[in-house]
């Protein structure tokens, strides 16, 4: 089963309760960042819809990565 890395945007005024509900919905929480209203974590792809439905969740998106240029590149 594919685990996907997720960024969940949540209501900043209602953080703690949301994090618990996210866990119940299948999110393996990596970091809860209450000041920002963002929770990062991973979940089975099938759980995404349930996570999206949690009250207080504004959006669910896949986390991705950045790659900067190699050290010897003239443009960075």
């Amino acid at each position, binding site marked *: 089963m594919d685990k*996907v*890395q997720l*960024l*969940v*945007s949540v209501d*900043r005024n209602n953080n703690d309760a949301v994090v618990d509900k996210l866990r119940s919905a299948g999110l393996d929480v*990596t*970091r809860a*960042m209450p*000041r*920002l*209203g*963002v929770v*990062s*974590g991973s979940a089975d*792809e099938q759980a995404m819809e349930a996570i999206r439905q949690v009250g207080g969740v*504004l*959006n669910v*998106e*896949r*986390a*991705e*990565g*950045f*790659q*900067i*240029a*190699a*050290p010897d*590149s*003239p*443009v*960075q």
Partner: protein
Amino acid sequence: METTGRHLITLRRGRSVQAASFIEKISGPVADSRELGAGIAMFSPENTTVVYQRVGVAIGNLDPDQAVAVAQVDDVLAVEEERICYAVYNADYMRGFQAGVTAATSAALEAPNPARAVAVAEILNESLATWGLQATNVLNSRFSGKGIKIAILDTGLASSHPDFAKRAGITMKSHIPGVASAEDGHGHGTHCAGSAGGVATPQSGPRYGVASSAELFIGKVLNDRGNGADGDIIAGIEWALQEGCALVSMSLSAPVAVGAAFSTAYEQAAAAALEDGCLIIAAAGNDSRRPSVFAPVGHPANCPSILAVAAVDDQMQVAAFSNAQVGAGKAVAIAGPGVQIYSSWLPPRAFNTISGTSMAAPHIAGIAALYAESTGTRGQALQTALLKGARSLGLPSTDVGSGLAQAP
């Protein structure tokens, strides 16, 4: 309708890797936009289909039979011919284009733009300070970022560098799981930290740092191979807020397609930061290839609450690689020095001269720290002061926003 002969393939979100393996069997090589690095934003190598994971789109040269076959692949939602007219039908784009032509025409036919002539005349040589510090008036400023905290989210810092080893006010932390130290094993982070907050009197060579008295918070969010994950970068923003940073400088960018949505999570984080008096500054990205390709402001600089920074050279021209506002997309806020920029690097080399919007962004963060000190403002008000103080370069605002930042 005019088309480019290429096809735009819309992929189911999150299934682009799976879809790509099928497309490869039908139409030949497929590359990930990130593996190709910056620079492929709009135009893929011939006969290679380029997948843009973040936006779930692939662009490739397909013959009619291949197009039909690709359309039948699971996880391919649509295959359409790429239209040439996409942005041209947009009034904002046309206005930007018109402004660009007007500026280029006046530059070619009339007397040199006075703002540009002044800036170029002032730049004599770099024996005492980099051209970037001269062109942004940093050398004449009585402010140094004293009492202002700047977070640099990057590959870390070479803390043994002679110009940093004895510099006061440096806090370092890694936000990458399994990476204990924020020491830089790449060079990029040390270069950016040098531009934003290098010392006023380096041990050797010219001065290259803007806010020499600012407190630096070095957050390692990119590993020594130069890659990093969204979750760790956002964790770095949270840390910067906890530490009371007035500024966050992010010299990282991923290419996006024209019209692509910005990340809700980054926007949520940046808006929260702004409310807390912390301004987030990011490189616009290096995906343009002027004069033919104007790539839109990349992720995450394309978020409304993040200040997007373009790069100019010492002749006050926009850098060929610097991303721009395309159509009604995210605007460039301001420009900073970003071509042939000398700054600190990993010892024993210790210094390096490189180019990129990555170099422009930390100059802006440093100059913003000087405004934070001189005006006492934070967040949105600080952004207003920074943009108001910029020097117009007579270039399209789609390229350089308000112009070249100037120290107070």
